[in-house]
C-alpha cells in the first residue's frame, strides 16, 4: 500500500551558503518557512519537487518536509524542522563575531 501523503513544504539547502531555504508558491526560494508554499497533495508535491530539482545551482537536496498550516503560514510539525528553521539552540557563539556572523 502506498504511504499516505503528508502535507508539507519543499525545503533544501542553499548551494553557496548552505542555509536552509524553502520554496514559495511563486517559485522563489525564501528563508522563512511561513512564506513557503503549503502542499497538500502528492501530485503537486511531485511537481514542485521536480521544479526544485531542476535548480541545482540554488537548491541542494530538496525534499518534502512535513509541516502544518496555520493562519500565519506553514509551521514545522517535527522538531528537526523546528531546529532547521530556528538555528542552533546554543547561545554562546553569537558574540564571537567573524565574517559570517
Amino acid at each position, binding site marked *: 500500500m502506498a504511504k499516505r501523503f503528508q502535507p508539507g513544504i519543499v525545503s533544501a*539547502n542553499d*548551494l*553557496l*551558503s*548552505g*542555509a*536552509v531555504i524553502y520554496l514559495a508558491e511563486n517559485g522563489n526560494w525564501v528563508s522563512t518557512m511561513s512564506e513557503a508554499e503549503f502542499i497538500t497533495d502528492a501530485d503537486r508535491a511531485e511537481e514542485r519537487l521536480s521544479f526544485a530539482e531542476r535548480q*541545482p*545551482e540554488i537548491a*541542494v*537536496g530538496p525534499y518534502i518536509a512535513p509541516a502544518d498550516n496555520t493562519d500565519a503560514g506553514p509551521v514545522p*510539525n*517535527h*522538531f*528537526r524542522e523546528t*531546529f*532547521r528553521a530556528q*538555528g*542552533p*539552540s*546554543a547561545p*554562546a*557563539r553569537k558574540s*564571537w*563575531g*567573524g*565574517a*559570517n*556572523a
Partner: protein
Amino acid sequence: MLDAQTNVTRTYLDRRVEEFRAQVNRRIDGSLTEDEFRPLRLMNGLYLQLHAYMLRVAIPYGTLNPDQLDVLAEISERWDRGYGHFTTRQNLQYNWPKLPDVPDMLARLADVNLHAIQTSGNTIRNVTADPLAGAHADELLDPRPVAELIRIWSTDHPEYQFLGRKFKIAVTGSPADRAVTKAHDLAVRIVERDGEIGYQILVGGGLGRTPVVGRVIRDFLPQADLLPYLEAVLSVYNLAGRRDNKYKARIKITVNEMGLEEFSARVDEAFARIRPEFTGADQDLLAELQAGFEPPALEARDTAAFDAALAEDPVFRSWADINLRPHFRDDHAIAMISLKPHGGVPGDASADQMRIVADLARIYGNDEIRVTQEQNLVLPHVAKADLPAVFGVLKAHGLATANAGLASDIIACPGMDYCALATARSIPIAQQIAEALADYEVEVGEMAIKISGCINACGHHHLGDIGILGLDRAGVENYQITLGGDAGSDMKIGEKTGPGFGYDEVVGAVERLIHAYLDLREDGERFRDTIARTGAEPFKSALYDEEANRDAA
C-alpha cells in the same frame, strides 16, 4: 616537529587546494551536479549540515604549534563565525563556511601544513594519538613519530581511497589509554618486551550502533613490520569487508563475522606476501621522524613560586589540583585547558581564546599545544614556576574552568543543533547538566558524562560513567541512559538502564544517579568503582523508582 615552511607535502597540499577550487567552480557554474560534487567535497572534509556547510580540519595526532593555532583562529574570523569546535577525534570543525570561500580556507590552512583531506569518506581518517604524548610521566615512548609515519603512508594512498567504510587509527605509547585505542578500527600500542620496543596491534574496535571493544590481533609486532602489517590488515578488510550494507561495513563486523582467528590467519598470509616489499625506507623515515620529536630541552626551574601560589591562592590551588597532570620532569606540569565552561558549548573556542592559548604556548609552553579526545586543549610542557602566570591569563579569557575529568567536563557531539544525522540535541543537555552540577562536582570527583545525539556515537556515550544517547521517539526527543562505560585501557561498553527520558527529564535523572553514588560510595571510590561493587541495580532504582514514587505522590 613538522616544519610548515619546508615540508615537502606543501606542494601536494597546494595541488589539492587548486584541484578543489576548480571543482567548486564547476559545481557553482553547473558543470557538476550535486551527486558528482558530494564525494569530491567530502574528500576535502566539507560536509553539508543542517544549517550550513561544515569544514572538518585534521589536527594530526592532536599536536599544534602556535602558528597553526593562530591560523585556525584567523580562518574562523575571515570566513566563519569567529570560533572553532574541537572534536573527539582531534579535529577542528568550522560550522559556518560558505562554499565559495572554502578553497581560500584550505589554502590558508596549507600555509601552516594543515588540511582537511581524509577527514571524511571511506578512507583512513586523521591518525589520532595520546594528547599528552611526549610529556606525561607514565609514557613508555612518544607515539607521534609512529602516528606521523602512518599518516604519511595513509594520506592519498591509492588503495585506501575507496574502502568499504571509514577506517580510524589511534596510537599510544602509554599504558594509560588516553587515545581511546580500543574504540578504533585499528590501534597501535607501543610496548616493551625483554628490553625491545615493539607494537601491540588491536583491531575491530568501534562505537556506533554496534559497539565493540577492539581486540589484540598481534601481541608484539617488531617495529620494522608495522607498515607491512597494517597493509596486510587493510588488504584483508578491503577484500572481505561487506559493501552490501553500510551498517555492516566496518572492520569490527568483518572481524566478528569471520572470527578473529580466521581474520588473523588471512592477515598473516597477506603479511608474508607484502613484507618483502618493504626494504627499509619506511624505517629510515621513522628514524628521521623520531629525530623531529625528541623530548624538549627544558630548563630546570625552581618551583618555589608555584608552591607559594598553591599555599596562598585557593582558586589557583583548586585549578592546579584538578587540571594539572604529571610531567616527565618534576619541575614541569601538563596543563589541561578546559573548553567546558559551565553552561558553554563543549569544545568550542573563540578566535581570541585560540590566540591566547597560542601565545601562552609561545611564552611558557615550548611552542606546543595539544587537542584532546575530551574536546579540551593542553599545554604539555609548562614549568611549574610559570603556572600562576599561565593561570592568570587563562582565567582572564574564560579558559580556567577547574573541571578536567570532572562531571562538567562533558563530551558532547554537535547533535541536532548542527548535525544532519542527529536524532536529538546534545549541546543544551550538556550545558544544563554542567550548570546543575557545577556547585558540587568537586565533591563528586572523577566522572565521565558523554552525550551523543544519534546512534553513531560521536559523543562516545557508550564509554561514559554516565552515557546519554539522544533519539527521536515518535517525533519527540528521548534520551537513553547507559551506565558503567569506561574509555580507559580496560575499555567497557556501558549498559542501558531502561526506558529513556524526555528532554526536560534528563538533568534530573543524571542528578539522581549522582546522588545515589554519593550515598553509596565508600572511601576513595570513583563512580565506576562503586558501580563495579554494587552493580547497576541501586542506580537503576534511583533512576526509575524515585520517579515512580514522585509521580505517585
